[in-house]
């Protein structure tokens, strides 16, 4: 009634900013923002002996031998090649546009959206390297091979849907993948 309203003393909040700053700096130090990127590959399942025998029966025209030797030189079908040429070589090999005798044979295949297409279904890119090959060169070669597949898939999907491969839905992607299946076989490196 007669009481005066007592004012509550305000809490001094001038240091909240400092506290928040300290937490902020802690997070800046302990966390990292880099999104991890990499070449995604699928390893073959642990090999059985029978499978190995089957692999050897592939006809010669169906194999592209890519060998990286201990001096980091690239040999495609036993000829020295530069890494920048590898992409075109691989594309020509996978696609076989003119039905060349020396390039992989084409087989008709029923594919969704496309109907029956001639596909080089049996082609194999055989990549092997030496134990002394540097990892950097190996990644560069892998990158060119994956790039060859990606460019072919993109080209096909641009022709068919006028969209890059990455924007297709999963059914369409599967169809494109059936026409250009990624077959890179990696043998164990040779020991000398």
């Amino acid at each position: 009634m007669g009481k005066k309203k007592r004012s509550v003393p305000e809490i001094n909040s001038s240091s909240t900013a400092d506290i928040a700053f300290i937490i902020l700096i802690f997070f800046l130090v302990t966390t990292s923002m880099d999104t991890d990127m990499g070449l995604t590959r699928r390893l073959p399942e642990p090999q059985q002996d029978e499978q190995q025998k089957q692999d050897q029966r592939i006809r010669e025209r169906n194999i592209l031998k890519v060998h990286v030797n201990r001096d980091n030189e690239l040999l495609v079908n036993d000829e020295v090649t530069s890494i920048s040429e590898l992409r075109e070589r691989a594309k020509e090999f996978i696609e076989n546009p003119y039905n060349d005798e020396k390039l992989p044979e084409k087989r008709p295949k029923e594919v969704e959206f496309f109907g029956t297409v001639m596909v080089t279904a049996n082609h194999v890119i055989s990549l092997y390297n030496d134990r002394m090959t540097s990892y950097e060169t190996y990644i560069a070669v892998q990158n060119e091979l994956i790039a060859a597949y990606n460019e072919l898939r993109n080209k096909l999907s641009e022709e068919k849907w006028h969209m890059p491969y990455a924007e297709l839905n999963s059914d369409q992607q599967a169809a494109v993948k059936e026409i250009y299946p990624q077959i890179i076989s990696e043998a164990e490196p040779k020991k000398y």
Partner: protein
Amino acid sequence: MSKFNKTGKKEMPALNTSSLPDLIFTLLFFFMIVTTMREVSLKVEFRAPQATELEKLEKKSLVTFIYAGKPLLQYQQQMGTETRIQLNEEWAEVSDIQNFVMNERMKMNEVDQPMMLVSLKIDRDAKMGIVSDMKQALRRAYALRISYSSIKRENL
């Protein structure tokens, strides 16, 4: 005295800083959301190789990291200068990878287990010998989805 001729008696009003904590907190939350905890402290040199056909690793919870490279300077007395493998905070041999991957997989959600992805963070100067051995070990552990960690190279 004229109206405009003020003497220095009047003080500058203090800047109101009451919203400063809120600003900082907003920043803090931003960083908490966009960053991830650094997984391990590296004991090996790691400079990623360069590539162009990169794919992002979407789900961090599915990814297991394996590092390999030359030991850092302070470890070189103990470990030498040959390429070594680091699993979490420990030095490891190729033979340890299989168990490590199995253990990591057991820790994961059952639904996620087949989606497991192993990111290989290998120094660009490493030799393929050890990389191949690691790959063989991963195959034996049925960790078949792998990613060679690399950085973007601009196309010329």
